[in-house]
């Protein structure tokens, strides 16, 4: 029995003023000036009472500039819709609201690797989280809206948690990646953010399923096999800030009424960050090779330059983190060290998948989404690259292994939302919605903004 808090159905059936979408557009512009959730707002929003959805700026929408937050893709107007977008339009009751802000190509944990970073929906001094920063901020500020987002290593879970919304990352291959501007093909997953679990489930049902345009897309049945045990992993919890640990402990006390809680040791999970970044950078460096300054996106005007000089000049438009990842990815794929880093990372991934699959047969894995309280923008800017990567300790294991996971809000710490992450077996995605719906019966997040209320 699904919980009846689907705002999508509520909205579609509600009487709305005739100028509803016009007013909403005006409110959105004002919102964008302070929080920057949108890279692009669709001025043609709204038709026949349809429900607004946004897309992360790395998901192609026909006729709308789609840049993945990169100057290298400036002016790129896709001539086609991503499959997920095509299915949203095909469902008939959704209207396209715009494209959401993100770290360039998805390279970031806090949403800061972009020209104008999105700000946290609860306090604009704080980070929004990344890389689907705008998707989370839009979800936390708009009363009626769902976001199509994307995760490679935690890009849905982290911003969703920091903005107090539900963030769902499906099993790898459950949703087609056709039309997604790739970061790392073996890790990228299109997912959903919403204010309730039921809305995410509804959108997941619209966008999922086999697609002839994505050969990695799976036809496997999605199950709803609930578990009665919640595992916490000792090796991961050791790296958690005491303030988050104590809040999370209170959540476990509440959940302990319905679930058996057990702390276990899974050493393999503490080995996930290195293979993740090795695989992600190796794949990213090959994906970014196609941005050449003339076929699409940014056009470098000096076509009289020598062949290699032209590409080198044109590719200056990449941001610093993108350059860093291209260089590292190229290094990792070098003949002399490929075995040492890349092939080894794939083996460690195999080991982690095997170990996690074993654990997840008997229960869910639960953890905080982020090991520290939400940092201020100024604090996050001071972190070194490896300190940044360490922030992904909880979100990387499920992303590396393609396991479905969901982030849900469970409270606030000093006025900022905090979220927990639940992981289950591959293709058991529905059980996550069931779990969170039960949690939502006794908890609802109070948002600071509710734009578009009726």
């Amino acid at each position: 029995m699904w919980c009846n808090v689907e705002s999508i159905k509520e909205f579609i059936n509600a009487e709305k003023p005739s100028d509803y979408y016009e007013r909403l557009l005006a409110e959105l512009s004002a919102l964008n000036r302070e929080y920057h959730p949108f890279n692009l707002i669709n001025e043609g929003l709204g038709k026949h009472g349809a429900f607004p959805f946004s897309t992360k700026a790395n998901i192609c929408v026909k006729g709308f500039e789609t840049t993945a937050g990169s100057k290298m893709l400036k002016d790129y107007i896709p001539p086609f819709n991503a499959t997920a977008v095509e299915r949203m339009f095909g469902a008939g009751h959704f209207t396209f609201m715009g494209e959401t802000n993100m770290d360039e190509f998805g390279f970031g944990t806090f949403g800061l690797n972009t020209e104008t970073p999105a700000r946290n929906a609860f306090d604009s001094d704080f980070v929004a989280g990344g890389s689907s920063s705008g998707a989370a901020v839009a979800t936390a500020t708009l009363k009626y809206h769902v976001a199509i987002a994307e995760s490679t290593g935690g890009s849905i879970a982290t911003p969703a948690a920091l903005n107090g919304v539900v963030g769902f990352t499906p099993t790898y291959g459950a949703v087609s990646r056709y039309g997604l501007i790739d970061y790392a093909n073996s890790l990228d997953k299109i997912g959903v953010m919403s204010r309730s679990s039921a809305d995410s489930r509804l959108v997941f049902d619209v966008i999922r399923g086999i697609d002839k345009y994505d050969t990695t897309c799976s036809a496997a049945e999605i199950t709803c096999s609930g578990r009665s045990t919640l595992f916490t992993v000792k090796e991961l919890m050791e790296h958690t800030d005491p303030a988050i640990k104590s809040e999370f402990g209170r959540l476990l006390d509440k959940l302990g009424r319905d679930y058996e809680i057990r702390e276990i040791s899974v050493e393999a999970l503490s080995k996930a960050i290195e293979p993740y970044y090795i695989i992600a950078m190796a794949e990213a460096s090959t994906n970014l090779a196609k941005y050449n300054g003339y076929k699409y996106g940014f056009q470098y005007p000096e076509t009289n330059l020598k062949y290699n000089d032209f590409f080198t000049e044109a590719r200056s438009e990449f941001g610093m983190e993108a350059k860093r990842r291209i260089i590292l990815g190229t290094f990792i794929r070098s003949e002399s060290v490929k075995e040492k880093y890349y092939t080894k990372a794939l083996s460690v991934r195999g080991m982690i998948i095997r170990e996690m699959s074993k654990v997840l047969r008997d229960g869910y894995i639960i953890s905080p989404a982020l090991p520290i309280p939400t940092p201020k923008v100024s604090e996050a800017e001071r972190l070194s690259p490896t300190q940044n990567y360490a922030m992904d300790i909880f979100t990387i294991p499920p992303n590396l292994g393609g396991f479905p996971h969901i982030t849900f809000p469970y409270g606030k710490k000093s006025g900022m939302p905090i979220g927990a992450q639940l992981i289950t077996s591959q293709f058991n995605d529905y059980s996550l919605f069931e779990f969170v719906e039960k949690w939502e019966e006794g908890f609802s997040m109070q948002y600071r903004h509710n734009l578009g209320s009726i």
Partner: protein
Amino acid sequence: MEEKELERLLKTSRLKASESEKKLIRADVSEIISFFDRISLVDTEEKPAYHPTDVQSRLREDEVLPFQDVELMKKGRKMHNGYFVGPRL
């Protein structure tokens, strides 16, 4: 990372960097590679997992399919006789 190695990587990946950027990149990259080196401590004989799930190759018939919207693809592009204009060879 040696300066020579960074130059090789920049050339291979068709990127350029100013002297100050190079200094920053070398420091960062060295820190990250030391971090990656920890992977050698993991003892495993596991088969490499190229995909997280069991991906089965699906092939389609080798036939020409019409592209959706060629005109939109050309929009705003520098074109010559139906070709994209790129650098000279």
